[in-house]
């Protein structure tokens, strides 16, 4: 009856429908709060269900796979769903005040359409994390893309439209590539369900083609360097909560799918060279993104480029979980660290990046511009926001105590354990460059203003939402035991060294 897995998708969809049908000012807040509450409740139930009774699976439409579509929840899905839930609801809290009190800053369309779009997006993110069907994943990816594009255009600015168009085209290219891969896989295996495909024999060239197409497509959607071109404009031109959603959550979805395929469908660990290549691209992203971020003069662009860099860390999981040509796992004994570290990086990045974009939203609102040079005196004017930006920055830099640190610790451990010390150098340099742009940002905040400036007041809730996310990004670094145990459930990473 109470099927938390289904409700994780249904609850936001119901909310989206209601929000679409009743866009008026009166209904907006109750609907939004209700939808967030219901979704969170579902997420909570799902979490406790998986935590207590292991991985879950359900068939839709009464047809078991291969005919029907299956939903499956293991530790990794739950991890991502919880991440989406926590980050999403806090962004939602921000949006509630952003789109009501800041009436002069927003267009009517924004206020009316944000909630239906965001709730659909949320539902389909959960759908992806729960889906066990590669075609269904494709459809959900499409929903996400379209919702994201619509959200970007909400701000109504010309630049946003251009960015959204570029995003749309890039995302479609990725989706199509993925779809081709799905077709090849279906033709090879005659099934679409992840589990069924995983159980079958490996096939030759078609599967190679399928992997190449799907991986590239998904990497494009994740904005892996050098296919990140669409991300900075799209993420920086959107409104603050939208930027937060895109940077914190949306890019993680396609990465999640890639990871599922890597472990579940393609026996990725056998592809050592591919792992190294993906890791190299990730490293290039770390360096390149950080370099670009250092060169930005506007806050949101800086944060967007930072996302390009941070995504790079995620791709280090591929070389770290690969088998050497000789057959043994490169990081034998440290796989747990590698997988947990990357998952944790996704989490802490989501929290921190959302906090930063929301903070940037406050800055933009108060200062009317997000040029770094205009942020003088911010540490006095907006102490809470400055603090939030700084704390989120700490997590991004990977400084202790923070989620970013925990993730970095685990990844570096795994890399050294695997003898792949070169990633460590990349992480080191990347961390320093991150510090460079974080402090580039904070520097202006600490310089006293030359002359008093007229500023718009910022209300407390939006500042607190940013702060809460930032604090969370730090707090998650204090306890990794439970995430460790959660990620083992259902054995999402089949090569996990179980304790």
């Amino acid at each position, binding site marked *: 009856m109470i099927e938390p897995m289904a409700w994780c998708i249904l609850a936001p969809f119901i909310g989206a429908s209601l929000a679409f049908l009743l866009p008026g000012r009166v209904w907006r807040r109750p609907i939004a709060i209700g939808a967030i509450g219901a979704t969170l409740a579902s997420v909570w139930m799902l979490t406790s269900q998986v935590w207590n009774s292991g991985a879950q699976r359900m068939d839709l439409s009464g047809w078991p796979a291969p005919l029907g579509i299956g939903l499956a929840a293991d530790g990794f899905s739950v991890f991502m769903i919880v991440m989406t839930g926590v980050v999403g609801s806090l962004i939602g809290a921000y949006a509630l005040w952003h789109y009501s009190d800041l009436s002069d800053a927003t267009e009517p369309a924004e206020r009316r359409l944000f909630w239906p779009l965001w709730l659909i997006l949320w539902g389909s993110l959960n759908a992806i994390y729960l889906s066990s069907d590669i075609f269904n994943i494709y459809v959900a990816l499409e929903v996400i893309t379209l919702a994201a594009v619509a959200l970007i255009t909400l701000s109504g600015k010309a630049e946003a439209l251009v960015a959204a168009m*570029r995003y749309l*085209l*890039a995302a479609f*290219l990725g989706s199509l*590539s993925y779809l081709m891969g799905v077709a090849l896989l279906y033709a090879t295996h005659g099934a679409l369900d992840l589990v069924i495909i995983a159980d079958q024999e490996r096939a030759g*060239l078609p599967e*190679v*083609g399928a*992997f*190449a*197409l799907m*991986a*590239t497509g998904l*990497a*494009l959607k994740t904005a892996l360097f*050098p*296919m*990140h*071109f*669409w991300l900075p404009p799209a993420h920086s031109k959107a409104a603050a909560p939208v930027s937060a959603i895109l940077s914190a959550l949306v890019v993680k979805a396609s990465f999640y799918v890639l990871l599922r395929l890597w472990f579940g469908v393609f026996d990725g660990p056998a*592809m050592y*060279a*591919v792992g190294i*290549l993906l890791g190299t*691209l990730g490293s290039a992203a770390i360096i390149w993104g950080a*370099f*670009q971020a*250092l*060169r930005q*003069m506007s806050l949101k662009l800086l944060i967007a480029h930072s996302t390009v860099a941070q995504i790079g860390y995620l791709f280090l999981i591929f070389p770290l979980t690969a088998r050497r040509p000789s057959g043994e796992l490169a990081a034998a004994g440290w796989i747990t660290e590698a997988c947990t570290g990357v998952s944790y990086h996704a989490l802490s990045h989501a929290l921190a990046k959302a906090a930063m974009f929301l903070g940037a939203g406050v800055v933009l609102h108060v200062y009317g511009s997000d040029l770094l040079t205009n942020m003088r005196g911010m540490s006095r004017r907006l102490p809470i926001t400055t603090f939030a930006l700084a704390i989120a920055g700490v997590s991004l830099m990977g400084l202790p105590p923070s989620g970013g640190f925990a993730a970095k610790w685990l990844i570096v451990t795994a890399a050294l354990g695997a003898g792949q010390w070169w990633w460590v150098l990349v992480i080191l340099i990347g961390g320093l460059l991150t510090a*460079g742009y974080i402090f*580039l940002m904070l520097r202006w905040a600490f310089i006293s203003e030359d002359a008093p400036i007229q500023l718009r007041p910022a209300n407390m809730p939006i500042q607190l939402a940013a702060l809460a996310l930032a604090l969370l990004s730090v707090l998650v670094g204090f306890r990794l035991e439970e995430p460790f145990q959660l990620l083992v459930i259902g054995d999402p990473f089949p090569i996990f060294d179980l304790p």
Partner: protein
Amino acid sequence: MNHLLTLAILLPAIGSLAVFSRFIGARASGVVCAVAAAPALLLGLFASTMEHDVAWMLLGATFGVDPVSRIFLIFTGALWMACGLYSASTMRSDPRRSAYFFFFLLSMTGNFGLLLARDVGAFYCFFALMTFAAYGLVVHERGAGPRRAGRVYIVMSILGELLLLAGLIFAVAAGAGIDMADFASGVAAAPNQELITALLFFGLGVKAGAIPVHVWLPLAHPVAPTPASAVLSGAMIKAGLFGWIVMLPLGWSPAPAIAPLVVTLGLLGAFGAAIYGALQRDPKTILAYSSVSQMSVMVVAIGAGLMAPDRWPLILGALAIYACSHGFAKGALFLGVAVAKQAAGRDMLRRMTMMGLALAALTIAGAPPLGGAIAKKSLKAAAAGPESPSGDALALLIPLTAIMTTVVLGKFILVMAGAMRTNEGKSAVRLSPWMAAPWLTLTLGAAAAAWLIAPPTEPMTDAPQPTIPSLSAGDALAALWPIALGVLVLAITMRLARSLPKAPAAPAGDLLSLYTLASRATVAAGRRTRLPGPARWKLDFVPLVLDSIEQSRRGETLTNIERAMKTWPVAGAVFVMIVITLAAMIIL
């Protein structure tokens, strides 16, 4: 007696803090000085050997008195007391009076403390205290001269302190322990005994005015207020000697490498300083050089002790008498310079002053039956002996130094006489009993020094005890002829000098100009070699990297690449390439 020990150190220290407040007048300050010096003097006169542990202090301190330090305490205490009293009068109108007495008493604390210290930690501590506090005395009269003298003084002193510290560290590390009682034997047993000996010798030598580290002395003594010069030259200079006596491995083992050097330096100093001093015109400078010369005689004695350990007990006894009588006499002479200024223009007083000065000078020169003669005789007796080349040298040296001493002190007397005749530098302050009494005491003390300290109530070492030799007629003759010769030499040179065109005076500080030259040359050479400039030494490479990144905002390359990646043809090509590369990597 333990209380006296405590008081001897604490009273000057407390006194120094007391006079720092401006409410204590000059007279009272003088009394404070006298009272503060009294316990030390009493200890010197009456104390028997004792030790007192102060375990919580420094490295675990011990204080005490032994026969050697008793002798030093006697003349040191007397000098400080006399000069303190004397200062009470001369400092009456000085605006920086309280600072003067502060440093005076602080130096006194250091001086007594180091004499009473029975462990190297405390010794070093009080030695440093005395050194730094005396700086305040040297520069008391502001102006270019004292400032330069102060700088030279402090540089040389720190050099000495450091050498001393190094010597102590080596010695303690080699197992000598910090206790004075076992220190010298420990040094003697150390594998690097010669190095330690050299470090200690030169480290303490700065204070003792040993050649070639004496250069501060002729500069500093003349510029300090006269009573301060008296203690500097009479008492503090002996701190170095005291250090040698208690810390060098004298009487334990020979130091064949270092001893000849010490003797040579001593000989050089004994003659060189006297000759150089005779060329000076300022009476206090002349006295300073005389001090260097006299100390050099003692250096020779130390060298002799280093060469022949078995003769050391005898040398020690003689050295103590020598130091005592020199201390008194030099104090008297310095105070005499001041007294002369006050006596100038008053015939009666002038004559009396001249007599006093002559008496003190003769003491130093070793005219019988004054204390100096006894000191010299016992020194000669102690050093001379079979298989002792250095002793022979000493025996030969002593009459020769007497000649030189006579020359240099004769010059001093002549300069003083001249000055008093011309009323040059006549002081406005009238000579009072408060001033005369200390001076007279010192003068008489100098004459009677040998008897004052003898016979020691206890043996100084386990070795045979030196006795105060009685002066026979032959001795008297032997002591007198060098003086006569000296007077003759002086007369001839003065006559010769009068006929020659007047030459510029030799600069005080002799070797100092050499050192200055050398150091300047080094600095200049260092500049010439153009090491990377200090600005570049910062090695601030990190901000440099950062700057270059941030400044590359202007550079187009990165921006162009990023922009190119945004164009669809490039993006599409990249996409296709990646697909192919991935596929190729799996296949291959």
